[in-house]
């Protein structure tokens, strides 16, 4: 186990994780960089349930940073086929060039993407929190997937449910609502996503 870092959730639970996992969060990384004798980083706005989900994602992505945002795939040094050995991989080969030609890397990335898609099919209650956490902790790949998950959640629900999902208020005046309901009276039909 490499160097670890301790994170304290908003509800006081402590998580000890490897730096490679935690530092996918640009916020955690910059907080840790500061000259701090105490290697405990408090995250008051993320509670333990969400933080553990976030860390689960980060653990899975520890070896594949920026899969979604840069599609840089796996650095050749970490390629499962090459096993970290220098043989066969020239030092000047860029990561993306490597993954374009290396079948093993490509398969690994596709598997990761599949895992991600399943990951964001979380309980709908969590998707809003996941989105907020990804934004607050500034984790690019998680943000990318959370947006995908949120879009699916919006698409799969009717307006009242969408409001519940994202803590939104129905701020139409009663007159406006009447107008809108008239315009969309067909919405009363059972909705099949």
């Amino acid at each position: 186990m490499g160097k670890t870092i301790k994170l304290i959730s908003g509800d006081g639970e402590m998580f000890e994780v490897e730096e490679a996992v935690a530092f996918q969060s640009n916020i955690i990384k910059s907080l840790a960089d500061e000259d701090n004798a105490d290697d405990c980083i408090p995250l008051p706005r993320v509670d333990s349930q969400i933080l553990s989900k976030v860390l689960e994602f980060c653990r899975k992505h520890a070896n594949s940073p920026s899969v979604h945002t840069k599609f840089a795939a796996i650095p050749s040094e970490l390629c499962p086929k090459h096993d970290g050995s220098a043989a066969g991989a020239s030092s000047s080969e860029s990561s993306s060039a490597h993954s374009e030609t290396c079948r093993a890397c490509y398969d690994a990335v596709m598997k990761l993407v599949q895992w991600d898609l399943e990951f964001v099919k979380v309980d709908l209650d969590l998707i809003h929190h996941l989105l907020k956490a990804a934004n607050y902790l500034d984790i690019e790949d998680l943000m990318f997937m959370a947006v995908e998950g949120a879009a699916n959640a919006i698409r799969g629900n009717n307006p009242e449910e969408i409001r519940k999902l994202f803590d939104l208020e129905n701020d139409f005046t009663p007159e406006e609502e009447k107008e809108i309901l008239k315009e969309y009276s067909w919405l009363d039909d059972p909705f099949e996503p």
Partner: protein
Amino acid sequence: MAHPAAAVAVAVAAVGDLIPGIPDDVAVRCIAQVPRSHHPFLAVVSRSWRSLLGSPIFCAARSQLSLPDPPALALALNLRSPTDQSWFLLDPFLRFSGSRKKSPPPLRLPSPPLPAIGSACASLGGSLFLLGGSVADVPSLAVQIFDARLRRWSSGPRMSAAREFAAAAAVGGRIYAIGGCLPRADAWAESLDPSAGGKWAVVPSPMLIREKWMHGCAVLAGRILAVADRGGLVYDPAAPSNEARWGPVPPVLDNGWRGRATVVGGILYSYDFLGKIKGYDPESDEWKKVEGVENELPTFLCGATLTNLGGLLCLLWTGKDLASRRKEMVIEWAGIEISKTTDGRLQGSLLWQEPVVLDAPKGSYIAHCVPLDL
């Protein structure tokens, strides 16, 4: 999925929280990925969502994502009665997508600021150009432009000649206005490049072919065809010299063309008084009937209008619902896919036919019907 979307760089004015706890630009990304078929639901969520849907920011965000939505095309419909006129947007995608039991009603659009009668209408991309017409019996130079995405009317550059019942067409990115005014007018024909934000330019034309009122207009193989009282004319913008640009309509075409017409797949379709849809094929200079739909459509299509909806021949006519107690107007519309057989016949297949209820007085007629990009 899993393709890296370029960071959707949108500058969002603070309009209030779209999704609490998330910056608005992230929320826009989430909402932008929802398919268009769900937009009516999104509009009902909250005020900020409703106003987002109509905003340029949202259009930009959606166009930057490579979404699997089918090409977004809708029909702008202008209904007119002696006392009233109204505009609607008929969106085939919303009507036929998903497993909804009821179709959403056509969207009522704002009316143009100038209530002109006898304007000419042409569409270019997502904009509809309403040219001239008369207001209080006085022909107008006004140009009114409707933006389908923003659902807003604005004024365009005024024409040089006031027109009513002119021919209007969009060819090669330009809007043309022909006739609708006295033949001796200098600017009897003029054109505009809307993107250059410029002014109308006169299109020179020989006196001999000039007519006053135009009854129908279509664009066939890059040429504008217009039908007037005594015959038709053809304008070819690509011809090398001014003289070569204007000419008469081929006699066979002229004999069969009855006013409203549309061009689909290089064939000009018109609806004759016997209730048959025919297509004029310029390559063989002959009219051909459209086979395969005779038994499926009613014998007579009252007040029929034809238009090209994304490569489909779309027919609209007024329903014969006059006896019912319903106060609103009912129109019928049908979409026909036409293919040419190996021996050059036109084979049509009816994709849909259904009534549409419109919030317009019974007895209205269809004044304009044009496709618009959304």
